[in-house]
C-alpha cells in the first residue's frame, strides 16, 4: 500500500518542487495539497494521510499551530515541519507541538526523502542542530530534574495563539470570528483576554509580539545593491 502524503505550503512553486521530489520515490503518493495550516488540518481530517509536511510560515494558521491541531486530532499523525530557520525557539515550539520531523527548507532537497523514510519506519528525523538541542535538554533534565525547554507562551491557550495570528495578519474581530466559526463576541473575548494576559494596549504591540515569537513570519527586506549606472535599465 502506498504511503500517502499531504503537503502544505502557501507557495505553489514550493509545493510543485516538493511534489516532484516526493513523487519520484516509489511507493509514495501526494494525496493532497493545502495552501495554509487551517486547510491542512481540514484536509487531514478527511484524507487521513500517513505523513503531513507543513511549512511553518503560512497565513491564517501557521505550521506550528497546525501541527498542534493535527496531533490533537489524530495522535498517530506524523508531521514534518519545514522551516527557513532552525533557531532554538522554533525548534522548541516544533517539538512541543508534536512534530516528528524537522527539515530546513534550504536542505529539503537533500533531507526530505530521508525524513519521510524515517517517519515511515516510525522513527523521527531532525537536523543535527535539533539533535544537539534535544540532547542538551535531556542532559539538563538529568542535572536539575526539570526540562530546560520550558514551553513558550505558557499563559496562552492554543486558541488564543490562533487568534493572535489572525489579528496580527490584520483581521478584525468579526473576520476572526468568521474564520474560527465562533461568534464575534467570543472573538472579542479572546482578544481582550490576550491583551490582558500579555499586558498590551494596542494591536501594534500584538503584531510585534507575533513577529518576535514566530507566530507570523515577515519578509525581511534584504539590502538591494545600488545600481552603479541608472542607464543600465
Amino acid at each position, binding site marked *: 500500500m502506498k504511503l500517502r502524503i499531504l503537503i502544505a505550503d*502557501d*507557495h*505553489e*512553486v*514550493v*509545493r*510543485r*518542487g*516538493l*511534489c*516532484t*521530489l516526493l513523487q519520484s520515490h516509489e511507493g509514495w503518493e501526494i494525496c493532497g495539497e493545502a495552501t495554509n495550516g487551517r486547510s491542512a488540518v481540514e484536509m487531514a481530517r478527511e484524507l487521513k494521510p500517513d505523513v503531513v509536511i507543513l511549512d511553518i510560515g503560512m497565513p491564517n494558521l501557521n505550521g506550528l499551530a497546525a501541527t498542534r491541531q493535527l496531533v490533537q486530532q489524530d495522535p498517530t499523525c506524523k508531521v514534518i515541519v519545514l522551516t527557513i530557520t532552525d533557531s532554538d525557539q522554533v525548534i522548541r515550539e516544533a517539538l512541543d507541538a508534536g512534530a516528528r520531523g524537522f527539515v530546513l*527548507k*534550504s536542505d*529539503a*532537497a*537533500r533531507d*526530505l526523502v530521508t525524513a519521510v523514510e524515517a517517519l515511515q519506519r516510525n522513527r523521527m528525523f531532525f537536523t543535527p542542530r535539533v539533535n544537539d538541542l534535544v540532547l542538551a535538554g535531556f542532559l539538563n533534565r538529568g542535572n536539575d530534574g526539570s526540562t530546560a525547554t520550558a514551553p513558550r507562551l505558557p499563559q496562552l491557550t492554543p486558541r488564543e495563539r490562533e487568534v493572535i495570528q489572525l489579528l496580527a495578519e490584520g483581521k478584525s474581530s468579526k473576520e476572526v470570528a468568521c474564520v474560527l466559526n465562533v461568534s464575534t463576541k467570543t472573538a472579542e473575548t479572546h482578544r481582550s483576554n490576550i491583551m490582558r494576559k500579555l499586558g498590551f494596549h494596542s494591536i501594534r504591540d500584538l503584531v510585534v509580539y507575533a513577529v518576535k515569537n514566530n507566530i507570523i513570519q515577515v*519578509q525581511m*527586506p*534584504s*539590502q*538591494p*545593491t*545600488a*545600481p*552603479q549606472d*541608472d542607464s*543600465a*535599465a
Partner: protein
Amino acid sequence: MTIRILIVDDHPVVRHGLKTLLGEHPGWEVIAEAADGIEAVEMADRLSPDVVLLDVTMPKMHGLEACRRIRENAPNCEILIITQHDSPQMMREAFLCGAKGYVVKSNAARDLLAAVDAVSQHRNFAAPESKVSGAN
C-alpha cells in the same frame, strides 16, 4: 526556436518547482541551475541563456548585483526577477539593474509563464495585481 532558460535560486526545492512549471511549456528548455549569484554570473557568461530566472536574496552575491553583472556581460540575455519581496522599491531597483520582468514568488504559479513569455520577447513584465504594478 527553443528558449533557453537558466534558473537561479538558493533553495533546490524552489528550483525543482520552477523547473516543473516551466517544463509544461513546449519550446522552453531549462539549460542549467545555479544556487547563488556568483554561479549565476559565471553560468550566464558561459552558456548565454535567453532568459535568466533570478532570485534576489541569495548567499555569496545578491541577486540584483548578479543581475547588473549579467546584463553587463551578456546584454542579450533577459532577466526575470523572481522573489518573495512584493515591494515596489525592490522592483524599481531590479529594473534599474537591468531586469526585464519582476514576479513575486507567491504568485509565480499564476504569473511565471506569462512573464517568461514576455521577457523572452524583450518585453517588460510586472504582475498586474501585485503591489508592484505599473511597469508594463
